[in-house]
């Protein structure tokens, strides 16, 4: 038998690496398997750096953290079957916060597809509701165009994760002499300027206006413009949790963030406002609490790039769909700065009232410790909280001085996010310090990534706020389930300092009050990674909090339900 000569066969893997490089990718976070091997094999000759994580979930979170720190598209890679399903939580986390991410999964050989082959799984079907789009590459002629389209989709409009599933044989030698383009997409629609003029008019007329900043400002790369707008027009602003850190200059106009765990001043002021200019916000119940009681006196103008976010959760009086930067540009010519002494005075009263009542911001010694950490670290440090009390303590106390300095899982609230996301952030921004603030529960969820940190000697600083409990769950049980603490105690049997040292990471244990400064100094001065286990009182909760089913102005400040 004569064998065919493969003169014009290319390696599919080389096509993948070429397109990645051309799309500006320099880093992939991944984990190999039999079906990714053709790709891993060609990486030796590619300028793209592959970080070998210790779990695929962590690879997705790292790519997410990388994207949030840099504004570029994050890329993760896994094998088929269990590798692909392990990505799911990470993809969903990126989806909920609209992170641009391309997840590449290797699939079983095309000729095995549909036969329940070893490690075959329908990852396209599994991820459909948590991706912007996905591609199964069935034809090598579509490999390049599918990849390019994946990158285009991930970062265009409202960004998000796109998955591309590539059968193993298509990563090997392929005939792609007849490349096919993907169908063109309809261009993004943008509303015309007249609706912006109406928004500006209503804003100019309003007596108690407020700006609400969402995650869309960072995603739309509009932080500088939004800052200029707020300063020029002197309109007070609040943000959602995802919007924190978009406007960083301390300018006296920042009222904090709204919602379940938000600042009382912000919640109370937005409740009294008569006009809300919502920029890149999707009004989830985490921000609005009971929707029907949210800002009852206000007209709402919503500006967003994603038509599905506009008017979805609350009715709006004005809307404009398009790029937030364009909107701000146009609005700054249309909105006139105005004196509103009555409104300023009311806000000032709100501020002083609260400040005298909650001197420590309701975060107790945990909050004080976080303030000490921030004081010791450089101004542009990136802080990555996990989920639970630790997240709320961090977002309530950490002052963001530069953009992209807070990386947190807002929409999904994924425990275990912080350590792998910090890996991605540090790899993407090696010039900045990265601090993880994590609960003991969340720390256990991706503890294996200490191995990644130590093997790449990534100088990430980790602070575990160890209260021996799933603290946020404990607080809810204490407040809303008659203090029956079932299923929330983690105990103190594990020596986390020994664990960290076992991974090759220097570590020490402190109590929140004692010797904290010296330990933090040692952490800051350490060349490489460093871990502090800080023991926190199990009753150190976060206040105020909005009980389930209550409105934004029904926050309680203690167990007795006092306001």
């Amino acid at each position, binding site marked *: 038998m004569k064998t065919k000569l493969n003169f014009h066969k290319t390696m599919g893997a080389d096509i993948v690496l070429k397109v990645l490089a051309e799309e500006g990718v320099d880093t992939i976070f991944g984990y190999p398997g039999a079906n990714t091997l053709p790709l891993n094999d060609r990486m030796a000759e590619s300028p793209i750096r592959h970080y070998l994580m210790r779990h695929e979930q962590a690879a997705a979170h790292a790519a997410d953290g990388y994207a949030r720190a840099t504004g570029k598209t994050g890329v993760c890679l896994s094998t088929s079957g269990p590798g692909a399903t392990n990505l799911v939580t990470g993809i969903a986390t990126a989806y909920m916060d609209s992170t641009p991410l391309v997840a590449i999964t290797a699939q079983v050989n095309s000729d095995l597809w549909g036969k329940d082959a070893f490690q075959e799984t329908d990852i396209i079907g599994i991820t*459909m509701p948590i991706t912007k789009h996905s591609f199964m590459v069935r034809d090598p002629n579509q490999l390049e165009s599918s990849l390019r389209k994946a990158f285009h989709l991930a970062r265009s409009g409202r960004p998000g994760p796109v998955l591309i599933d590539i059968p193993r044989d298509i990563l090997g030698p392929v005939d792609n002499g007849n490349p096919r383009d993907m169908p063109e997409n309809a261009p993004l629609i943008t509303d015309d300027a007249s609706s912006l003029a109406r928004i500006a008019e209503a804003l100019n007329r309003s007596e108690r206006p407020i700006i609400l900043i969402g995650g869309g400002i960072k995603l739309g790369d509009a932080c500088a413009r939004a800052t200029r707008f707020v300063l020029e027009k002197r309109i007070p602003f609040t943000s959602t949790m995802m919007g924190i850190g978009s406007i960083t200059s301390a300018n006296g106009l920042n009222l904090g963030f709204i919602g379940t765990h938000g600042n009382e001043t912000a919640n109370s002021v937005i409740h009294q406002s008569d006009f809300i200019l919502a920029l890149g916000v999707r009004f989830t119940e985490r921000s609005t609490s009971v929707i029907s009681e949210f800002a009852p006196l206000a007209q709402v103008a919503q500006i967003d790039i994603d038509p599905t976010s506009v008017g979805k959760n609350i009715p709006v009086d004005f809307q404009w769909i398009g790029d937030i930067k364009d909107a701000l540009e146009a609005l700054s010519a249309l909105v006139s700065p105005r004196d509103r002494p009555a409104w300023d005075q009311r806000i000032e009263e709100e501020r002083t009232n609260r400040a005298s009542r909650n001197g420590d911001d309701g975060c107790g010694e945990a909050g004080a410790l976080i303030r000490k950490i921030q004081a010791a670290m450089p101004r542009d440090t990136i802080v990555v909280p996990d989920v639970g009390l630790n997240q709320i303590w961090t977002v309530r106390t950490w002052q963001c001085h530069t953009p992209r300095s807070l990386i947190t899982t807002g929409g999904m609230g994924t425990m275990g996010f912080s350590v792998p996301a910090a890996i991605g952030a540090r790899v993407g921004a090696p010039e900045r310090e990265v601090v993880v603030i994590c609960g003991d529960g969340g720390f256990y969820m991706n503890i294996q990534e200490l191995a990644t940190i130590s093997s790449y000697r990534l100088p990430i600083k980790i602070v575990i706020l160890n209260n021996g409990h799933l603290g946020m769950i404990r607080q809810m049980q204490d407040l809303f389930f008659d203090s029956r603490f079932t299923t929330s105690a983690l105990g103190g049997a594990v020596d986390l300092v020994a664990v960290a040292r076992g991974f090759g990471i220097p570590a020490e244990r402190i109590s929140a009050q004692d010797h904290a400064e010296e330990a933090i100094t040692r952490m800051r001065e350490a060349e490489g990674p460093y871990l502090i286990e800080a023991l926190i009182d199990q009753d150190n909760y976060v206040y105020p909090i909005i009980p389930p089913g209550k409105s934004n102005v029904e926050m309680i400040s203690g167990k007795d339900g006092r306001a």
Partner: protein
Amino acid sequence: MAVQEHIISLLVNNQPGVLSRIAGVFSSKGYNIRSLCVAETTNPEISRITLTSRADRDFTDKIKKQLDRLVDIISVTDLTDIPSVKRELMILGLRVREENRQEILRAIDLFGCRIVAMDADYLILEVTANTDKTVAILKFFEPFGVEEMNRTGAIAVFRQSPS
């Protein structure tokens, strides 16, 4: 809010998985698809999907925006309030007894149904009509003994030329 039957017409890329994504939008927003028709258009790369769903007035806005976001969807039109010709096909298997044979044959004639197969005591009827009329015809024949019934669900075209 008033609940009504909506008829939605979609042009989509003729690709595997597209239907599944569309169904996902409906199920994730809690809407039920009542009928569904899919066929290639004159361009084999593009299919037309016609589906109906009962929902309130917000529906068009909510679902249309979500559908517009799907990459493989080319256009979404809610035909409910747009002048259009809507038809569906129904096939009925009908028991015929001597005492009502005449009445059945008259009704077939009156309704403009077609007989596609016939035995001494069994008829297969083909009905093409808009959904309301289809339902009315079915109701009429039911007391005589409908043994089988199958409907395609609606398809539609604009009454005016789309250009």
